[in-house]
């Protein structure tokens, strides 16, 4: 066993120093060392998207990436979307539209959707489908997930117009 190395990155807005093996995957460091179990390990081969987290705002499969490669970067997990005990409006939209059944894919789904909405606040159906191709859901049939995302996007229409004016 090689000695552990110290890596530093920001997780959900907080600076984190973690001692981990050089070949340890990001999903393992998040779940086992930082206790952030929102990212799920499903297939371990990048197929299912349950382990999706945002790296500098972009979705990545945390089972396909070494934690050491996150050095100096910003990671957002589902735990970081809203303060403890509260829900982000996008999470609320998932609840209201029945877009959550067993819940295993949900953190990844929401983070993939969040990355899309940050880039494109009012996506087309095609944009949504394309953004979610890497996230599998065996329960909902996807329709309710797409409806939740569209409803959230509609609810921000007024707000993003004001932002644009500034």
């Amino acid at each position, binding site marked *: 066993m090689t000695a552990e*190395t110290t890596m530093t990155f920001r997780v959900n807005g907080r600076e984190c120093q973690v001692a981990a093996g*050089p*070949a340890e*995957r990001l999903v393992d460091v998040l779940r086992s060392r930082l206790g952030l179990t929102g990212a799920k390990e499903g297939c371990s081969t*990048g197929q299912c998207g349950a382990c999706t987290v945002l790296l500098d705002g972009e*979705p990545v*499969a945390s089972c396909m*990436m*070494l934690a050491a490669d996150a050095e100096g970067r910003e990671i957002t997990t589902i735990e970081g979307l809203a303060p403890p005990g509260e829900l982000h409006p996008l999470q609320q939209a998932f609840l209201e539209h029945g877009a959550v059944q067993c819940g295993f894919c949900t953190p990844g789904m929401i983070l993939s959707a969040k990355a899309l909405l940050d880039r494109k606040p009012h996506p087309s159906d095609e944009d949504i489908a394309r953004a979610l*191709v890497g996230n599998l859901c065996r329960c909902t049939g996807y329709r309710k997930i797409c409806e939740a995302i569209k409803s959230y996007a509609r609810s921000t229409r007024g707000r993003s117009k004001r932002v644009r004016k500034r």
Partner: protein
Amino acid sequence: MAEPQMLQPSTVREAVRALAARGAVAMAGATDLIPAMRKGEIRPRILVNLKGIAGIRGVKRTRRGIWIGALTRVADLLDDPVIAQNLPLLAEVAAEFASPQIRNLATIGGNLCNAAPSADLALPLLVFDATAEVRGRSGKREIATSDFFRGVNRTALRRGEILTGLLVPRPRVRTGAAHLKLGVRKAMDLAFVGIAAAVQVSSDGKKCRRARVALGSVAPTPRRAAKAEAVLEGQVVTSQLIDEAAEAAVSAARPVSDLRASADYRREMTRVLTGRALREAFRRAPQERPR
């Protein structure tokens, strides 16, 4: 898995030196490497993480064509203005590559060096006559992409050599290109069959001056279908000629039967999809010099 030692070279020279050691394995996006290590298919003693190397990332126009750094992520090919203008086919293929989560990690160099029979990005590079730029202890050399793939997960790279970039000649005037991929799921699926075609037509648009056809997932490596190209070049393009070329492409296929598709099905789909890709490429070929 036993923990390998990790080295983080910051120059090509350092990387080449590190890779000369026994048991050293080069790592870029790591999306093929991590599952292979977990399955025990690759047991590196030393992981040489190439991602910190400056100067082999990004896309540039050069005198000899478009240069693409080996560390360029697949996601970056999607919205690069130089790629969009000069090699839109590469952006099309990148857009269907795996999933956003993988495109944000995987690199073009990694996709080629992993040398899967289904390597998506190999096909557009093969039809545009791209060259692989390689650096090793004894200096630089160039390898035509058509000579780069040597077998399943095997390339022409020697121990201690790394791929630093791809040089793609700017496509000639009146060239059209197309790509088709057949799989079950839109994302992530390795294709049963992948086809890319690029054709250059004569100024009156009637003859085929130059043709390139590349096949993926139907042989141990991505490869050109030389017989199909020979059927087309110098000939007046007719529907029958395209059918003959599609038939000829099948002779380059050496497919296996596996869980995803049978060899017979892959051969038949090679014929069908080559015909479709060629028709689309001819349709896209501008008759007059653009601009």
